[in-house]
């Protein structure tokens, strides 16, 4: 009897399935705040990548004026866009090169948090049982730790390199991601298409990686972008508090320098305001991206 489908539905050429990137692009186009967030990241990434050619001076070089004097505490001018520090270093060059450690810390921490969070969330949510209980206990434990004190202690123990800062941030931030991803996995496991995969012979690993994992990517992305801000702030705080590495120039060390040399009292705003703004912008970008993420996470497939 094989029935015939209605021609006027079937004939209408439907567009190809939009991929993740197409959806991402459409999401951004419709979502000004996310677009701003992503743009901020892009600008900073560009600056960090091209820092060498943008910065007019070596950030730690002590500069002298033409008449041989130490170029200390100069106000902004064409030669020194943001003036100089009290030791005669160019603030603008520091700001530009300071983007590198900040973004390195931010982006690696994001990847680390997203990866660990997804892996733990997937395994705990999908396998359940004692694995789930053990992992979630661990997550509770970590969530109970006070953030900054723990970072300081850990960094003091293993050394203040950027990698170690990333490590400590990742250790402290994965549980948030893992918990949310776990509950998403639990919901997904109830969906009939998961049972359908099982009935057609898909192994447990395949179900987890092929059918469930793609559906949690947006959440992992969200927690990654939140981690960027946290990691950068942590690195800055450590530097500011004097626990950071002293040999790298970062926004945090700039603030610490400015603070130590009482830039505020001397009204050298162009020294400490720009790194402060940069920090705020990067953290804000993560926040802007995370806002309205639901649309990306649960695409209303009906509106295709």
């Amino acid at each position, binding site marked *: 009897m094989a*029935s015939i489908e209605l021609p006027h*539905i079937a004939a209408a050429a439907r567009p190809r399935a939009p991929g993740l990137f197409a959806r991402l692009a459409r999401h951004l186009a419709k979502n000004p705040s996310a677009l701003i967030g992503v743009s901020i990241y892009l600008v900073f990434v560009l600056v960090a990548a091209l820092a060498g050619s943008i910065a007019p001076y070596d950030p730690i070089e002590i500069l002298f004026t033409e008449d041989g004097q130490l170029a200390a505490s100069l106000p902004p001018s064409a030669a020194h866009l943001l003036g100089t520090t009290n030791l005669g270093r160019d603030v603008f060059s520091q700001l530009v090169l300071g983007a590198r450690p900040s973004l390195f810390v931010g982006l690696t921490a994001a990847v680390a948090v997203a990866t660990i969070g997804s892996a733990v969330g997937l395994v705990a949510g999908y396998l359940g049982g004692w694995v789930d209980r053990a992992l979630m206990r661990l997550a509770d434990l970590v969530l109970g730790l006070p953030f900054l004190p723990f970072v300081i202690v850990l960094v003091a123990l293993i050394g203040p390199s950027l990698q170690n800062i990333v490590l400590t941030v990742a250790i402290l931030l994965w549980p948030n991601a893992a918990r949310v991803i776990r509950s998403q996995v639990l919901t997904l496991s109830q969906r009939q298409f998961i049972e359908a995969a099982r009935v057609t012979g898909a192994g447990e690993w395949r179900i987890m990686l092929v059918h469930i994992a793609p559906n949690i990517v947006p959440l992992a992305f969200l927690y990654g972008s939140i981690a960027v801000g946290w990691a950068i702030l942590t690195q800055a705080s450590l530097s500011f508090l004097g626990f950071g590495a002293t040999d790298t120039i970062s926004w945090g060390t700039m603030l610490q320098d400015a603070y130590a040399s009482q830039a505020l009292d001397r009204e050298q705003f162009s020294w400490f305001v720009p790194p402060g703004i940069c920090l705020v912008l990067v953290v804000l970008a993560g926040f802007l991206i995370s806002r309205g993420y639901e649309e990306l996470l649960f695409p209303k497939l009906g509106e295709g």
Partner: protein
Amino acid sequence: MGTLLEVKGLSVSYRRGGVAVRAVDAVDLDVPAGAMLGLVGESGCGKSTLARALMGVLPGNASIDGGRVALDGEDLTELTPAKRRQRLWRELSFVPQTSMNALDPVYRLRDQMREVLCERGGLPTKAADERAVALFRSVGLDPVRLTDFPHQFSGGMRQRAAIAMALALNPKLVIADEPVTALDVIVQRQVLDTIRRLGRDLGLSAIIVTHDISVVTYLCGLTAVMYAGRIVEQGTTEALTRRPTHPYTMGLMNASPDLHEPVETLVPIEGAPPDLADPPKGCRFAPRCPLALAACRESDPPPVVVEPGHSAACFRAAEAGALREAARKASTWTR
């Protein structure tokens, strides 16, 4: 008995991505006092939109493009939204399509009842609680369960609680959107019997929206068949089931088997209702209609009265007898 609800030329459209979707198009409908009217049609034909328009609870992207809705002779579309809201619950009330989930999960049913009875009906708490007990009894629920939360109820019980709430302020008309669709046969029957008893004992008038013609046949004296935003046939349920005149009604009847009659093959209606953003020219059913003539694709068939109180919007309504013969054959419907 007089006409309780009179709908004339009602049109409703949604704005969706810059285009207007006419989900209800020039609908005429009469509900006499004390009658139950079944509104049947496939998914996406505009049944819920019509129900919501009658209630005045359309979503924000919808607008009424014209027509009047008169309750006891008074045009509701001319009232301000605030005035109109005052009538909700008191004069006409609604059991929404997802009423199984429409009860608020964080409040006990008694509190939800009080909300309606005290806030809307102005009853003191004590009187409200007594009324809630009576309402629960009338829909066959144990009043003890008033202190339960909705999640402690089964699907059928939640459906009955939603009906009890709709009846709280003695409305003249209840509009129930798919009140039994998600229920199993036994619970479905119990809920249908509850509504039927309320109609018999209290003279309740109701519009029952469903896609199942058997439910309408069981419960309603009147039937209106909706297709692609229009009422294509209406009349007494007896006339419609015995003498269906619009080919769409004939198709629906074919697709609804009777458990007690042997069936050789079921006959589906091929295809799906049109996209209302771009409805076909002429009769909207023509692309799926095996009995369509060339004229059907040219202009809109107006409703024709085929016998007193029974009308159908089909160019071939006069030949209905012969069409029914043809429509009974499965071969007519498979192309």
